[in-house]
């Protein structure tokens, strides 16, 4: 096996790109869970975002509109979840699973006439000569706008949750919805908004897969990315900057195993392909070992439905 042709700068740059879909989806789910809602439908929202994003970009010829379409698709699907769990009091775990099953079917249905098509390109931002700097160039100045957007989103969400009044309300609702309700906060409204945001972010992540990473539409293309995003939220102890770390870690493993595949490693392809999932499990075990959910930073009302007595 020969990895010597790999340039460290290119490696870091490509792990940043590989981590974008999971980072976006995990950030969205982080906000959802901070509001006390567990939406296990990330995988479904991602794949719907991937296909709606692709369709929007394909017909408009604009990649940017594609991302808008992806976010809209994910958000629209998440509203089914919001309706069921927030207004019809359905079990969140079961509804999340249903969202994933339905989303996968819906996405295949929507995407069947787009298989094999090419989306409009999402170009790198022009940084001029900066992009040619050794190491720093590819790492800092060699990306498309979504990569920068995703990192900015980490900072923005971190600021929102810790510094803004809206974030305070959101966390109050997630910690104790009864107390938040008696303080006059609109528990349902906050949660529906959070669910919609989570859906849009998952949709964006999916669109990044179909518009940039692959870039085309194929069935089942998310391949568990949504589940890994859920795992990263736990890994990150519900903190945005740690989500970034988790996503990069995962991106790094994906890039490494893909490069090993390309370099003709002695390890069979299937074993390399399963490594990201195995490592995600390992990380989950290490993070949760010997700790209660509360000490990990999980919102206290996570997964519980709220029903105001009056």
């Amino acid at each position, binding site marked *: 096996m020969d990895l010597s042709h790999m340039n460290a700068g290119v490696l870091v740059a490509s792990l940043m790109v590989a981590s974008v879909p999971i980072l976006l989806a995990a950030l969205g789910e982080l906000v959802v869970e901070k509001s006390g809602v567990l939406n296990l439908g990330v995988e479904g929202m991602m794949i719907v975002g991937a296909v709606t994003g692709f369709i929007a970009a394909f017909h408009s010829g604009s990649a940017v509109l594609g991302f808008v379409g992806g976010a809209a698709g994910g958000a629209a699907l998440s509203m089914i979840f919001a309706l069921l769990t927030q207004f019809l009091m359905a079990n969140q775990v079961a509804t999340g699973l249903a969202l994933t099953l*339905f989303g996968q079917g819906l996405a295949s249905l929507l995407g069947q006439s787009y298989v094999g098509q090419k989306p409009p390109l999402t170009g790198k931002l022009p940084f001029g000569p900066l992009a040619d700097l050794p190491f720093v160039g590819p790492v800092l100045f060699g990306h498309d706008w979504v990569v920068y957007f995703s990192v900015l989103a980490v900072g923005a969400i971190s600021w929102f949750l810790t510094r803004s009044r809206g974030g305070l309300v959101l966390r109050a609702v997630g910690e104790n919805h009864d107390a938040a309700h008696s303080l006059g906060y609109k528990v349902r409204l906050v949660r529906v908004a959070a669910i919609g945001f989570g859906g849009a972010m998952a949709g964006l992540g999916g669109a990044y897969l179909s518009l940039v990473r692959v870039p085309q539409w194929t069935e089942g293309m998310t391949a568990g990315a949504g589940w890994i995003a859920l795992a990263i939220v736990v890994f990150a102890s519900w903190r945005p900057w740690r989500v970034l770390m988790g996503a990069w870690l995962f991106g790094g493993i994906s890039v490494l195993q893909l490069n090993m595949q390309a370099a003709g490693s002695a390890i069979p392809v299937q074993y390399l392909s399963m490594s990201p999932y195995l490592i995600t499990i390992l990380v989950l075990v290490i993070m949760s070992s010997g700790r209660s959910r509360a000490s990990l930073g999980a919102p206290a009302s996570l997964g519980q439905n709220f029903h105001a007595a009056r």
Partner: protein
Amino acid sequence: MFRLEKRPTPSTFWIYATPFLAVALTMVAGGILFAILGKDPVAAIKLIFFDPLFSADYASYARPQLLVKAGPLILIAIGLSLGFRAGIWNIGAEGQYVIGALCGAAAGLAFFPTDSRWVFPLMVAAGALGGFLWAMIPAILRTKFNTNEILVSLLLVYVAKQLIASAALNFLRNPDGAGFPGSRNLAQIPAMANPELIPGTGLHWGGVAAILAVGVAYVMLQRHILGYQIKLAGQAPRAARFAGVNSDRLIVLCMGFSGALAGMAGFFEVSGPAGQITIDFGAGYGFTAIIVAFLGRLNPIGIFFAGLLMALTYIGGELAQLVLGLPAAAIQAFQGMLLFFLLAVDLLANYRIRFILPGAR
């Protein structure tokens, strides 16, 4: 405006009526979906729900398929339902199913060629053991390290799929197969095949196992202390602790039981309808079984009928694909919709809806 009032006890009427209501609503919504796709909705619904059983043209082929498809769904859903009742979410049954098929086939092919009649029972046991052990991974990680069993069991599905692909390409590849990926065809090896037991019914050993599982689960839930503990742990976790229910033991039992049943289902599939280990073995039964479990209200008898109904949508879906050119994915979306409606109308069992005139209090 309307307001929800929690019922003191769930409505018995609605508990039994909601699955039917959900199916009816899904037919309506599915019809709309098919109409959007440019198909005649009435013809499509009739083709999915009616023709596989009663049409002179299709029934002779489609009817036996009902048990073929329902067998694995019921077998897996029975196992899942016990865990779901106890609040233990094994959603990686698809992985346990795949590993069961792999282990069962490998155990038999290790003795190839043979005509011993002990091989088949050995393969069943190996399939069950494979699924059981695969489910023990999330179970033990949960009990020892407090790791979320939903995520681990699900992530292991992707690992299992890679493992079976590797087996089809490498160590289980048919040596006489001219280099093509895929194992020997078990259905063509008499000692290892899982044939139709009564001609024209579609009943194979998987269906027998499914019916047995329904019976065992029913008796266990009604009469056995384990069934009582499962219900108690799901409904009132603190009362379960007070009653001395060992939650770790319950997690291992429920996960192990569902894993073993899923593994068995996988083996019956690979030795019968599927025939061989292939790169993409696994038709999503492990996920559809989640819908079956809920549609059957986590009740063994309910799951039996839900499994038949879901099998019908598979067969009818294939028929609609052939006759109307309805895309395969439409059926998957249709099944997902069914679960949505089921979860939505569940509200009627637990809440009373009060309509309030605007301005009135």
